[in-house]
């Protein structure tokens, strides 16, 4: 008996009991849909995370120096460690740049009628920012752009002179430029920052890629000031720094050297150096663990579905004992009977898998939008894997009933009602 005949027979048997077949595959279809949704949403989120890391750049060391000091009146008299750090980094060929990484809060920025004091951080249902969104404000050095994977689109970048001369200039991200200045050229225009005019020196190109979604909605919505402007704009002396390497392979060695240098510079070792690759690793590990647990739960539902298949196939074998007897009497081999029931179970689960893949695709799209504001399609390997898995479950759980059917003695099977 050839395969095509067996497939046709299995189809007839499944179609002949439509209602029961549909109920039988319910378990498989729910399990497959769950596994697919989980795997592809996790997958999509990981891609988004990696894209974001890539946008911010890899091969970065973050340095924290927490050696603050205050006078009796509570003024910040901490040492500015940046010049020393800068001098060290300039002498290390593997380092591409270094910059303070301070944030500036609670200072209103305005241009014309646009004023961040009037802006609210509002999101729509999908998590996209609504209307004008206040930009993040950073202190940086002339190497801020090099450290943060930024490319200049217009004007000039921050320069070393801007630091030493306390120039009232800034550079802005693509979204911030659009928000304040619309389609006109921002370069040379003055933003009012806390009442003081800051000339826009340059605009950076967008870092957003197709994959980055909205995981960080302010990826291009920011303003960078020379870190020395902290004297006018407020905030404390920089304590966070970022060192960008030319090649992330040198990470370990450079990290050791930076650590060694800081030991000699900062009293009591009040500093900490970490690479963002480390964070990426931690996050990936955590994500993998969550994904594993969720997939495990989904796998249990698949197991339950498989047992359902086995149960119904056993019923089918009992119901069709006489048919098996007839087939054996007119010449069916045992292997033919096994093939018949295995193919039927495999096909049944295959249909469940196809429905599950459909629902899983919709689930991935909906969950991706709701949770991560991304368009997540299940990848081809995931889809193929889900289908193969469902057929495999059918064959696995169908094998016991099929073996049972094939072991029936023809004469006894023929006697069955």
């Amino acid at each position, binding site marked *: 008996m050839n395969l095509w005949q067996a497939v046709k027979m299995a189809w007839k048997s499944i179609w002949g009991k439509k209602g029961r077949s549909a109920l039988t595959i319910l378990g498989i279809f729910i399990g497959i849909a769950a596994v697919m949704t989980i795997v592809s949403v996790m997958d999509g989120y990981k891609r988004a995370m990696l894209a974001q890391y890539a946008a911010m750049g890899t091969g970065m060391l973050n340095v924290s120096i927490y050696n603050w000091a205050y006078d009796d009146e509570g003024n910040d008299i901490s040492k500015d460690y940046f010049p020393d750090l800068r001098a060290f980094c300039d002498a290390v060929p593997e380092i591409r740049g270094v910059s303070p990484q301070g944030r500036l809060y609670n200072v209103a920025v305005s241009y014309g009628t646009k004023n961040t004091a009037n802006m609210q951080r509002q999101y729509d249902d999908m998590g996209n920012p609504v209307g004008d969104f206040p930009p993040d404000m950073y202190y940086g050095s002339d190497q801020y752009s090099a450290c943060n994977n930024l490319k200049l689109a217009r004007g000039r970048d921050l320069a070393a002179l801007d630091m030493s001369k306390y120039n009232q200039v800034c550079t802005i991200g693509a979204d911030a430029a659009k928000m304040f200045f619309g389609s006109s050229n921002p370069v040379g225009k003055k933003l009012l920052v806390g009442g003081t005019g800051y000339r826009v020196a340059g605009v950076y190109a967008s870092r957003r890629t197709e994959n980055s979604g909205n995981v960080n909605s302010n990826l291009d919505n920011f303003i960078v000031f020379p870190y020395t402007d902290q004297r006018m704009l407020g905030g404390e002396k920089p304590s966070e720094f970022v060192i960008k390497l030319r090649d992330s392979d040198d990470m370990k060695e450079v990290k050791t050297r930076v650590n060694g240098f800081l030991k000699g510079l900062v009293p009591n070792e009040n500093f900490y150096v970490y690479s963002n690759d480390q964070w990426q690793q931690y996050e990936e590990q955590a994500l993998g663990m969550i994904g594993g647990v969720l997939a495990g739960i989904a796998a249990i539902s698949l197991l339950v579905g498989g047992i359902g298949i086995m149960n119904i196939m056993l019923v089918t074998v009992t119901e069709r004992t006489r048919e098996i007897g007839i087939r054996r009497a*007119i*010449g069916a081999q045992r292997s033919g009977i096994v093939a018949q029931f295995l193919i039927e179970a495999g096909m049944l689960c295959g249909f469940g898998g196809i429905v599950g893949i459909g629902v899983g695709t919709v689930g991935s799209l909906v969950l991706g939008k709701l949770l991560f504001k991304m368009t997540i399609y299940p990848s081809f390997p995931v889809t193929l894997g889900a289908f193969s898995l469902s057929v495999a479950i059918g064959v696995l759980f169908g094998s016991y009933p099929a073996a049972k059917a094939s072991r029936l003695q023809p004469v006894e099977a023929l006697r069955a009602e």
Partner: protein
Amino acid sequence: MAHLVELIDVYKIYGEGLESEVRALDGVSLSIDRGEFVAVVGQSGSGKSTMMNVLGCLDIPTRGEYLLDGADVSELSDRQLSKIRNKQIGFIFQQYNLIQSLTVLENVELPLIYQGIDPIDRRDMALEALERVGLSGRIKHHPTEMSGGQQQRVAIARAIATRPPIIMADEPTGALDSHTGLEVLAFLQQLNNEGSTVILITHDNGIAATARRVVRLSDGKIIDDSPQDVDWYAPVKKD
């Protein structure tokens, strides 16, 4: 030349050694040659169905030798027995034993499918068999849509589609009215005339009278085995 079918001191015992043991076949020896038309007659419980199961390779005897075409059946594997049932024997059962979910044509094609015959030849062979039983107009019907007589004709078509040398019929008229029953018997005689060996199992002496040779069974033993004259074209009426 060897007999086509030869039973040598065959026993089929259920629950052997127990007090309740049943000897369905109790030391039966029988040989049937090519082209014979043999009726095996007996009351219910006489062991005739067991004999048919053994002869049809559906069941294995407890003891004794069964030679089919010279080969010892007890030494054959399940796979080889399936092949014999498929190619050497055409079964006709009292309850027709058609598969309800398949159409008439598919039922008749089934043994040919198990033979691995390609679809076009298979269809031709099945259609030819259906034409012989006068059902070529109803090939798309399902067995449940047909009368008992028609279903039995489908079963006959299935039995002869593979052109087996042996036809085994177990009470083929048992579920039919007398007129339809006679048609079936006439058809068996015709097959015998064309060269098939026919083994007919029945409890009905009138039906057994259509055979050229009658083997009588009682309590698992052969009590009579004798040839008889038969008028081929006017089968004896049922009692």
